[in-house]
């Protein structure tokens, strides 16, 4: 094995092989996060269930009981749970990945490993919660006797899009936070607004036509619509919005890695 350490390595060279070599570390970091997450709590793992259930309850109270939103054939709890299923993964990954590099200062200033591992590990931790939420959704579907539509075979692709988008945002934010700590304060705000401008608790069909181009600038809108379409066969948004979302996600992902690589080289010096 020969390594050359030089100033100014070429700009875009994502070393996938190296990341693969460090896969053990990737899973160890994810394991560590998961393991220490509920350390010294009384309820422990139960928190993983309580949080989404309480949010769901509030959604039911606000959108179903107070506002009486119409979700067609899909019972509201199932409808909202689907939105939350996708949204909570997204918000977890961007919140955790965003500050991940800065909070592992001790590590990155002392040992070398591909830094991308850190935000990547957060998406794995998020995925465990995602699976738990999936079980909760399944139980709700069984309880309300909702049969999935035949579009369900597309669901894995939609989930894949969600993962890529979350990662892209997470990587972008983690690299930005290294340089501008301000981003740390922007992220929670971003998540809060995102919850309102994405069809989590209400259907996107509630959005007036003239605002839709603006609405679908948020790629999560398309993804949550995709989730519901593949599960219940609810209508999809206009094709142009889907294409726009797809291209946007890809672009975000590629640029995130590019920017991360650029910042990565300076981490130890500026962190």
């Amino acid at each position, binding site marked *: 094995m020969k390594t050359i*350490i030089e100033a100014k390595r070429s700009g875009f060279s994502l070393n996938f092989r190296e990341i693969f070599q460090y896969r053990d570390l990737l899973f160890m970091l994810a394991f560590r996060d998961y*393991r220490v997450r509920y350390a010294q709590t009384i309820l422990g793992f139960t928190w993983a269930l309580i949080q989404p259930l309480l949010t769901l309850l509030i959604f039911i109270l606000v959108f179903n009981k107070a506002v009486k939103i119409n979700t067609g054939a899909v019972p509201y709890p199932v409808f909202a749970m689907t939105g939350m299923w996708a949204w909570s993964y997204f918000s977890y990954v961007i919140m955790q990945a965003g500050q991940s590099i800065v909070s592992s200062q*001790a590590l990155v200033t*002392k040992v*070398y490993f591909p830094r991308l591992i850190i935000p990547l590990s957060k998406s794995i931790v998020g995925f465990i919660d995602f699976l738990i939420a999936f079980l909760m959704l399944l139980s709700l579907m069984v309880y309300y006797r909702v049969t999935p539509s035949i579009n369900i075979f597309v669901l894995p692709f939609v989930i894949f899009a969600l993962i890529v988008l979350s990662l892209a945002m997470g990587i972008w934010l983690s690299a930005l936070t290294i340089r501008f700590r*301000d981003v740390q304060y922007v992220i929670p705000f971003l998540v809060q607004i995102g919850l309102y401008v994405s069809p989590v608790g209400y259907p996107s069909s509630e959005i007036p036509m003239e605002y839709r181009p603006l609405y679908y600038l948020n790629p999560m809108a398309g993804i949550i619509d995709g989730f519901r379409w593949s599960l219940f066969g609810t209508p999809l948004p206009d094709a142009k919005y889907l294409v726009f979302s797809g291209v946007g996600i890809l672009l975000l992902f590629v640029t995130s890695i590019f920017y991360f690589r650029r910042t990565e*080289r300076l981490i130890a010096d500026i962190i």
Partner: protein
Amino acid sequence: MQAGIAVEHLSKMYRIGRRRSGSFRETVSDRFDNIFLKKLDAEDFWALRDVSFNVGQGEVVGIIGKNGAGKSTLLKILSRITEPTEGRAIIWGRVSSLLEVGTGFHPELTGRENIYMNGAILGMKRPEIKKKFEEIVSFSGIDQFLDTPVKHYSSGMSVRLAFAVAAYLEPEILIVDEVLAVGDAEFQKKCLGKMKDVSEHEGRTILFVSHNMDAVQNLCKKAIWLNAGQVSEMGEAREVCRNYLESIVTSNWNKKFITENSIPKIEFVSLDEDKIKEGEFFLRMGFKSPHVLKPPKPGFVLFNESGAPVFGSNTKLHDSPINEKALKEGVIGVSVKGITLYSGNYYVSVWLGDSYRDYDHQHYAIRFTYLSKINYTEPIVPSAIGSIDPLATWFVE
């Protein structure tokens, strides 16, 4: 397999001066300054400047120098934590660095989990760690606490665990920075022994940063002395260490003091440089007093680098013809024979008094660097074994 390091004209520059928080507002205002004021009050600081050297396979090289000389920067570049500004380094083989051990420990995880965690951070595969697990645990001596969260460990315990993980890692190149600054003396010895073992029997390349000159001399054949970011000297470890030690402590074999008329004072102290090389500690001190001292009672203590007393004497303890005398001034000498010190820096403090009280005390009046002629096969840790070589003879009955 070839393993080694080639460093070519390596330089690292930091911008210092203004404290930067890296906030967005600051970046914007910097840009503004750049465009409109054409001036930024940042200064360039070269932490490393044009450093070149080669380390061959199985070589153990010590890196010495004062704090801020660029040692850590060099190691950081070689372990790929930071990038050089100029020049390059070529490394053959897997590198593991031990920069401040225990880096990857998470306080909430147990010792067992942290072993796996730390191994993964250092680039080990799970089966590799599993294979070494027993050895790691027994080396660190934390068996009982394996399933206790590390936050309940003493600092010594976590250091032991961390070193153990790294020591059993088996990279081709091991970078070790100041492991000896922590841990108890016994463990330091264990670490040094392990490193020696690793380099001699397994042919691994080690870069070793330390302030312990005995350790450097014993572990390393070669040493690099960095000073202000540049290579000051490079070559045979003993030679480089001696020159370095001499440079940081200007040996001061004689010292004169200002005397006063009102109180008894020491006038001068002098230690015989040639005699100490022959194993004789030969100290002379002159004194002057306004009144007759009946008798004058002098004393001295020799201290080692870390300030621990090595030996001392005074005329209350060791009877002397002086005790029969009453003097106002004069020169008193003392000789201690058969003294073999280990290499290092030493200090001598002297006292002057009479039967009733102490009048004068000159702390660290003499400083000197001693380099042993003996080639020890084991690294010496003065805090564990003392500063005097008893030249013991071992026998079997």
